């Protein structure tokens, strides 16, 4: 029987090592698209994924939607309008952590090219627009690796709103930012909330090295640029299947 003291110290030591990983403890690469709804980012990431798959690269696509673990709580909170800006932020942070720890990081460690539709910057923009302190938000996601490339799709607010509203007329309560009391009209509230979110994104262009993409340009042209940037920043041949 080992004495508790020894076990504890040994355990504490391993924990300490685990808590501070080296700057880049993985061989994969992470490409992220960010931007408000209707900025065209998902379409572009989809096309990038097609290109990489057809090219025979080890690719994995992940998006910011609820992981099964946190889903029921998120649904309950949203349906009954129980969430405050802080709990809204925390429940999504838990959700992200689950996906990060069980999916994104293992994939990066095993040498995949991971494509993420939204990443931590979504939380910075959206929860920041809700009024959560920026420093607090940054700390919440501090463990998440910095992407190799972050594409920021920027479209004028009117363009993005038009795209969203033409395809999906019913806006959900939190999606429209109704919890902020910006307006009783969902569309007006949504427009204001997206404007606040957009302003947050714009502030991050410099601080977070976003590659700025003009969401009003033709799809094909944007995609060409995206492929050029990815090819220029990531040594793609490392991700060839079967090598």
């Amino acid at each position, binding site marked *: *029987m*080992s004495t*508790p*003291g020894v*076990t*504890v110290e040994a*355990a*504490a030591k391993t*924990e*300490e090592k*685990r*808590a501070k990983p080296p700057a880049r403890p993985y061989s994969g690469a992470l490409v992220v698209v960010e931007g408000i709804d209707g900025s065209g980012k998902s379409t572009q990431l989809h096309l990038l994924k097609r290109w990489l798959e057809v090219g025979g690269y080890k690719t994995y696509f992940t998006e910011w939607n609820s992981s099964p*673990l*946190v889903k*029921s*709580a998120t649904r309950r*909170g949203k349906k009954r309008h*129980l969430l*405050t*800006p*802080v*709990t809204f932020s*925390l*429940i999504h*942070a*838990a959700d992200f*952590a*689950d996906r*990060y*720890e*069980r999916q994104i990081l293992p994939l990066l460690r095993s040498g995949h090219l991971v494509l993420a539709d939204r990443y931590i910057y979504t939380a910075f923009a959206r929860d920041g627009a*809700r*009024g959560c*302190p920026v*420093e*607090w938000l940054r*700390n919440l996601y*501090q*463990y998440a690796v910095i992407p190799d490339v972050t594409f920021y799709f*920027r*479209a*004028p*607010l009117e363009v993005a709103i038009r795209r969203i509203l033409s395809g999906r007329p019913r806006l959900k309560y939190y999606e429209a930012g109704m919890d*902020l*009391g910006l307006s009783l009209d969902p569309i007006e509230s949504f427009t*204001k909330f997206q*404007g*606040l979110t*957009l*302003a947050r994104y*714009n502030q991050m*262009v*410099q601080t977070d*090295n976003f*590659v*700025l993409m*003009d969401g009003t340009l033709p799809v094909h042209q944007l995609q060409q640029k995206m492929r050029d*940037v990815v090819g*220029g*920043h990531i040594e793609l041949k490392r991700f060839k299947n079967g090598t």
Partner: protein
Amino acid sequence: MSELGKRAAETESEPESVRSAAASPNGADSWTTDTAAARVAVGLPTRDRSELSGHLMVLEGTDGSGRSTQIALLTEWLESQGFAVQTMGLRRSFLIAKDIDSLLAKNSVTRYTLALMYATDFFDQLENRILPALRSGMIVLADRYYYTLIVRAAVRGLDHDYLHRIYDLALPPDLTFFLNVRPQISFEREFQKSPAISFWEAGRDLHLSDDLYDSFISYQTMIRKEFVALAKHHGFTTLNGENPIRTVNADLRKRIASYLGIKNIRYKPSHALVHLWQ
């Protein structure tokens, strides 16, 4: 990186309309920002506590340190003194408590996720139960507070600074008591409560030992060490939780009475609670 910067600079000048939308020339922007900030301030404690006429008192300690027993007794005593009491504990939020229960049961959860779900549970209770109670002048007795959450996550390797900063937004208690007991005593008390030691009480997820007793002792030792450090750092009142319940209770009453200005600290539990009085 410089390549990225250059590319960003190239496209920077393009969408002028975007910038004007963001900056909102008609002043609507500042109004909405203020509203958002106000909204957070409504839910969250600012450092200004003048609107909170109640008092928040926290009992911290490892498993089996006697917190729940003491809270039951203190509640009765304070109510008999005419104070309205609200209790809180971890994993009791309407929002997410059940989900944490089922996660723990499945043992499939990872450490950041669990830490953040507990944080959600904590802030949901803080904003929706504790702050309203404090605003209406109640005494809130907390059976564990965010310190436990920091301690548990810290022994699982999360950074102390990371954890403390999450709870920067939380309300610091008026009084915090740490009931200090040795792990061996914890074990005996927990075993009296239920006939078997649980997975989480023994910190089995940390793989400290295949022997359940060893695992329990090692885990509780780690937890206790973290608590002792926190108690020192935050100036908790440390009480010897191994003393008889009535001795610990008398000590708690004395300190709470002096804080609240209660003159009479004599107390004998009612018939309903007399079984706790050892």
